[in-house]
């Protein structure tokens, strides 16, 4: 019951946020929409007993990534409005057609196709300790330790690369 309620409300918030991202003219407003979506996602994770992931989502995504976005928006200073017309003549038409196709297809599939969303779904209800730190840490440091180390490397390289790219060089003269 509670979960269903959470799902509906947070789902609506997420959708609203997503739409805001796409529609808002001011990029800061888009960032705010993204924030809404991210936070509602976090709640949905919690309701699905993915506690660690939810926390990481808030800290990393909402706390770091989004902040980065806002910093860059500030840095670049793009808060002017975008022009209404699209410079690319056919783009809107193509997207419209494709969207129509997708919606029709997906909608038809969902409504009339008799398929399983998750074919091998079990009827076991996961326990509340499903997504705790220790539960995630266990596979992380045993089965996926290689990927774990690789991502550590990735982050280092990414940080170094970003600094190298964006370093402000003072020009002489």
């Amino acid at each position, binding site marked *: 019951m509670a979960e269903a309620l959470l799902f509906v409300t947070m789902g609506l918030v997420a959708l609203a946020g997503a739409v805001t991202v796409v529609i808002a003219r001011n990029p800061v407003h888009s960032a705010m929409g993204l924030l809404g979506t991210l936070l509602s996602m976090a709640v949905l994770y919690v309701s699905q007993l993915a506690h660690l992931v939810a926390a990481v989502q808030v800290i990393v995504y909402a706390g770091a990534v989004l902040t980065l976005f806002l910093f860059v928006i500030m840095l670049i200073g793009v808060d002017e409005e975008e022009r209404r017309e699209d410079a690319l003549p056919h*783009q809107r038409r*193509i997207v419209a057609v*494709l969207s129509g196709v997708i919606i029709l297809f997906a909608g038809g*599939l969902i409504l009339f196709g008799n398929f399983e969303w998750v074919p091998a779904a079990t009827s076991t209800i996961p326990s509340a300790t499903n997504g705790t730190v220790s539960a995630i840490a266990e596979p992380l440091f045993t089965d996926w330790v290689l990927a774990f180390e690789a991502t550590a490397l990735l982050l280092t390289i990414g940080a170094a690369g970003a600094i190298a790219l964006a370093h402000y060089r003072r020009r002489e003269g």
Partner: protein
Amino acid sequence: MTDSLWLIIALPLAGAVFLHLFGRYLKEPLAGWVASTAVAGSFAVALAAAMPFIQGGEHSQTVLLWEWMPAIGANLEILWDPLSALMVLIVTGVGALIHVFAIGYMHGDERFARFFTYLNLFAASMLTLVLAGNYAMLFLGWELVGLCSYLLIGFWYFKTAPPPAAKKAFVVNRIGDFGFMVGLMVVFTTFGTLSYAGIFERAGGELTTGMATLVGLLFLVGAAGKSAQIPLYVWLPDAMEGPTPVSALIHAATMVTAGVYLIARSAAIYELAPAAQVTVATVGALTALWAASIAVAQRDIKKVLAYSTISQLGYMFLAVGTTAYVAGIFHLMTHAFFKALLFLGAGSVIHAMSDEQDMHKMGGLRKVMPVTATTMGLATLAIAGIPPLAGFWSKDEILGASFQRGGWFSVLWVIGLLTALITAFYMTRQWVLVFLGEPRWDEGKHPHESPAVMTVPLMVLGLLSVVGGLVNTPARQALEHFLEPAFEIVTLQHPPEGVGMFVLLAGLSVVAGLAGVAAAFLAYRQPREAWEAFEHGFEPLWGTWEQAYHVDDIYGRVIVAPGRRAAEAAAFSVDLPVIDGAVNGAAYVVRRLGEWARPLQTGFVRNYGALLLAGAVTVVIWLVASA
């Protein structure tokens, strides 16, 4: 002994390779001596290996050198029988003498070593041809000597005349080769092999008269090309553009005899085709007469000898056409002696006269060049058929065999006799114009006798021209016995038996020869105005002879010009618009396609993203729909 037969071909071949790689580093005469030694070495090996045949009783052998295409009977194999042995001895013996002569003749030439590379290569090729144990290897040698002929005729390629002459030789030969190749194909389809062993023994049983005649005629086409008979002789006079040793070796003593050799070797096939025999003999006789008439009016010392060669080859064809194979080969041998001598002597004269070749500008050279004059005189008598020199015995045997065969061959005999008279005439004319009378040469020429390296081969050949005929007199037919094993399966034609007939026929040809000699002497042992008037007296005939009956001109208009027009049509009406058009058109289409597809590359990320999405949607829908 037969184990070392491969050396015969290998020595000059190695010489050619060696000189090709290192010739330029050798000081001048050394390259020539290397080449001469190689050929002389082949002669020595051949002589040693031929002893069993000379002593008599030995049978032919086939020595396999390398399996090349056994399925069609084409291996590198040597057939060592008296015929091939004799040919080898002639080629290497006379060839070695000519090599030595060339050391003197080519003195000072920039490409001295290169010349001997080609000469050695030629020797190796000719020996391949002659030693072949199957038609494929023979054809290999056949083509290679054609190549060497081309290379050597065009040796002085920087002059204007030699390159077209070389090309002409090659192209006309090619026409003959076409006939030869078709003949080979017929042989192959009939016998399933090209090996002599597989063909000649079975010929009697498996070859119909019609097929044999066809093969015989096709081989004649090839032989006519290589041995300069009607109608494919036109390349030989032009080939005189090459250095004189080349003319001596290739276009007198050896390469041009390949056609005669081919027919002699294929005797088993000709045995079954009387019609082909008649054709061969007739072509030979007519060519002999035709060429002799042209030789009468020539001014260039080498052209006389060129037409003389064509004429004498005609005699050889007459012989083999009459199935007097021994007579034909006999004349091949004696002709090699005196014709090589004549050419080398001419070379000696040309060398002394600083490359003057017009006989009207010579005269009186006997005093300055006694050795050359004497040896050439002996050769002239030999070719005129004056006994007891070599030419008499061989020519007479041919004429005798023709007479004996009778019927149509009697007519050919008359032609042969007439030709003998004319031959004696024009050869004596040449000798008198060059060596007797008052000097007529230009200012600045200082004729002198040639050095020993050139005169010694002349003397050796002179000796051979004198005594060479004695190997096959009617009294002691040594050559015939020598060659017998090679012609076991065919019936040889002989001159009439009996001393009486011999004296009669020989007497007739001697009379003809003496008549020719005397006529020439009378006409030309005169002051210049006299014999010039004599020559003018025969106009317009004399002019026609001098122009070789305008044959080159006729060929040019009837064959060459239409051929050129056809080639131009093919090039400009077919190749250019159609083939080039297709290729260029294909490229054009591709380019247009590219231009049509280019607008897809807008450069905008969002367009690409949209395309991506479209593709992804298509794939997903398709996957779901097919699941």
